[in-house]
């Protein structure tokens, strides 16, 4: 035990230092699945100072650079999870139907072992989302899996667009309507929350606009409107500065939010879960709304009883930009397998299936100019597999973030905790169960215990 702690401390120091750098690395002789530019057999990928400098053949490693021989292996962009709650010490500010003012960015936990386990499944980046208790939840954080740092700020992907969690259906109505006896109790009420909030935000903006227009006039005697972070955030949504990521299941509620957004001129809209998205796929495509779905989750609650595992395929074939997400500490470890299920359910070709966990989630997070494909100039986030990533026999071998090897199957020790609790006497043994469903509702148990 003592030895373990010592090793872990050493690890803490070594990985901690490493994570602050941008790496230089040559990946040689792999089958390169670029996603946006076809497959390049027997090719090299050179990452310099964290960025992909060159994809080609016979590339030379700069002196001192690490080299990975990927002969017989598949090299693909780091997998992106557009819906996750790992690396967060709090999920739900379930105290009001509208909590636009809070941010999961204030609750990032870099010590979460789930980050490493996600890396071990080739996942380099995730969208650390607020939960689904509120119709308008908190803002979310896009994080890179720079495991080993103890500084929450280092996980954050600087420059990634702001995002916010919305939620429709059973969760907000259960928490606020049934739980607290306030609106929304129904899907009618959920719409009302949005319309009220955006209307207030419009008034708020108008107040500020008026003040800003007049404040420099000599005759002006007024005072500034009261600053309100909640309304500031909602105003930023109306201005197009924040992407809405909305927890949703049923076709009618999905349709409703599109109508609300049309009325308020909001264009950047991604639906999450979207189990019945397939029923309104033409409308989603016409709006330009995107969809981030489960591969096959259904029937765990009533609003997902009329679901189909063919959802991702139907959406894709109807030209909706679709991703497959995890929403789970377990599932995030094998998103490559989840993407492969679209080949069982709808026979999607390899490139489309892989897009669901790479370039498409990147588009949904507004970071497709930086990650999501292997292209020169993009960030050096790479996953290397033995066997094709869509095969059941796929094994992630290396995972690289910004040119730094964050996961190495052959060489990593078993215990990858950054901070083991030295006072822990009794082993924590997690009972195997699938009660993990809907982590979106984590931190809300207290609401239903009275």
């Amino acid at each position: 035990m003592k030895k373990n702690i010592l090793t872990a401390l050493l690890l803490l120091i070594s990985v901690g230092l490493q994570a602050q750098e941008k790496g230089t690395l040559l990946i040689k002789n792999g089958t390169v699945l670029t996603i946006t530019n076809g497959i390049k057999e027997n090719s090299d990928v050179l990452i310099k100072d964290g960025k992909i400098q060159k994809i080609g053949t016979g590339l030379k490693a700069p002196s001192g650079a690490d080299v990975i021989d990927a002969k017989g292996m598949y090299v693909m962009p780091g997998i992106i999870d557009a819906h996750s709650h790992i690396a967060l010490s709090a999920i739900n500010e379930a105290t009001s139907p509208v909590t636009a003012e809070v941010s999961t960015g204030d609750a990032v936990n870099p010590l979460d072992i789930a980050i490493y386990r996600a890396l071990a499944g080739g996942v380099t980046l995730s969208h650390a989302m607020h939960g689904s208790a509120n119709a308008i939840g908190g803002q979310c954080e896009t994080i890179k899996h720079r495991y080993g740092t103890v500084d929450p700020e280092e996980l954050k992907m600087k420059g990634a667009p702001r995002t916010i969690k919305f939620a429709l259906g059973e969760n907000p109505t259960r928490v606020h309507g049934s739980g607290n006896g306030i609106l929304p109790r129904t899907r009618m009420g959920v719409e009302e929350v949005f319309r009220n909030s955006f209307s207030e935000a419009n008034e708020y903006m108008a107040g500020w606009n008026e003040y800003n227009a007049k404040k420099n006039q000599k005759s002006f005697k007024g005072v500034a409107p009261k600053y309100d972070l909640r309304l500031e955030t909602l105003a930023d949504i109306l201005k197009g500065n924040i992407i809405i990521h909305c927890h949703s299941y049923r076709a009618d509620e999905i349709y409703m939010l599109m109508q609300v957004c049309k009325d308020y001129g909001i264009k950047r809209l991604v639906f999450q879960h979207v189990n019945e998205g397939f029923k309104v796929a033409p409308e989603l495509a016409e709006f330009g709304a995107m969809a981030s779905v489960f591969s096959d989750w259904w029937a765990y609650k009533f609003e997902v009883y009329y679901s189909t595992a063919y959802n991702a395929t139907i959406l894709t074939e109807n030209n909706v930009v679709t991703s497959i997400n995890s929403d789970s500490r377990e599932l995030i470890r094998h998103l490559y397998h989840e993407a492969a299920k679209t080949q069982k359910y709808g026979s999607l070709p390899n490139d489309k299936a892989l897009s669901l966990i790479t370039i498409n989630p990147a588009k949904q997070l507004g970071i497709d100019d930086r990650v999501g494909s292997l292209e020169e100039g993009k960030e050096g986030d790479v996953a290397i597999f033995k066997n094709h990533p869509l095969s059941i026999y796929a094994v992630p071998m290396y995972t690289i973030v910004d040119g730094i090897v964050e996961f190495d199957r052959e060489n990593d020790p078993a215990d990858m905790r950054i901070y083991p609790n030295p006072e822990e006497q009794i082993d924590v043994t997690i009972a195997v169960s699938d009660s993990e469903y809907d982590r979106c509702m984590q931190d809300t148990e207290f609401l239903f215990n009275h």
Partner: protein
Amino acid sequence: MIKNILCAGAVFMAFAGYAQSSKGKSGTFALTNATIETVTNGAIQNGTVVISEGKITAAGTAVTVPSGAEIIDCTGHVIYPGMIEGGSRLGLTEVNSDARTRDFSEIGEVIPQIQALTAVNPNSVLIPVTRVSGVTTSLALPSGGMFPGTAALINLHGYTPDQMYAGFKGIVLNYPQSGRRGRFDRRTDEEINEAAEKALKNLNETWGKLAEYHKLDSTITASGSNEKLDYYPEMEALLPVYRGEMTLLIEVNASNDIRSAIDWVKDKNLKVIFTGVSEGWRVAKELAEANIPVVTGPVLSVPTREYDRYDRPYANPGLMQKAGVKVAIRNNGAENVRNLPYDAGFAATYGMGREEALKAVTINSAEIFGLEKELGSIEVGKIANLFIADGDVFETKTQVKHVFIAGWQIPMESRHTKLYDEFLERSPGVKK
């Protein structure tokens, strides 16, 4: 008015019949030109399987197709025995968040007489979704207290629980847990230890009563007396377990608990299966020495401890199998029991190998449940539970083309396929 109601009733029934599923089809079938994965006798190329009266009546290369048989050409396809799922809530729950549809957990600590089979809903929408993936059989598993009831193996076709019953029942024991049950278990170390000791004490007390009940019952029987014991359904249900005539399914996961359970069953002369066994790899040698078979899973799960290697749950079945334990794999879910081949596929990839992983969802499960003469392989005389796939059963992209359960050809449709058919090209589309 009466006529109207009758009429409406008829319409409703017709609609319900249609909305649920097409009918299965029985008869004599010849599956020709197939690769046959017999599981017990290797793979046969270009072979034929004949199904008649619910049984496999021929399998091999020199097979005469009976006249009148419906021929299914399986060129390029593979015939596998139906997969057997070793412990789930399939049939016992419909929409898991809705208590009104949860029938797997009854009130009471010692209620072994409670029958899972009773609550199996043959018309669950989840069942067709499962079987079209080649899972033909599953174990309906009650959960809850110490002895939460009797589990039952079911075939995933039939209109009554008895039609579905596949021939195995076992009484479930949730073995006392000694560890912390996860990050949200806020009890102190003392509270945890006390609770574990108390739970073991309760188990032993119950077992002591059972020993007493057995003695009384045996004495009465031996004396040929007409005397009857007082109505005591719990003990009545446990008696065959005590006498080694009925299987005890012991749910146990943490390594300390597995050791304790091995110790507990020693010298009791019981028919025992350990289930769960998520830390089996830690005590694989002891499990093998104790000669206790295991139904483990889900394989797609997180490590039980934060400091364990990330892939331990994937490797667990293989590590136990290599140590000499007989291993079957379960999915342990409900609506996604169809993912059983992926639980086995990950086990195959992470050390178990394809051949052993296939056994772990077919013949091993059959042997563990005492049904090796009926299920688990393609052999003449066995019940015709099988499916035909266009490739490797574990590969994610593989399509299952046909499924037979007890000789019935199953319609290859479910809510999921029907919604796909309706909505891939929705009509009307975006405009009216």
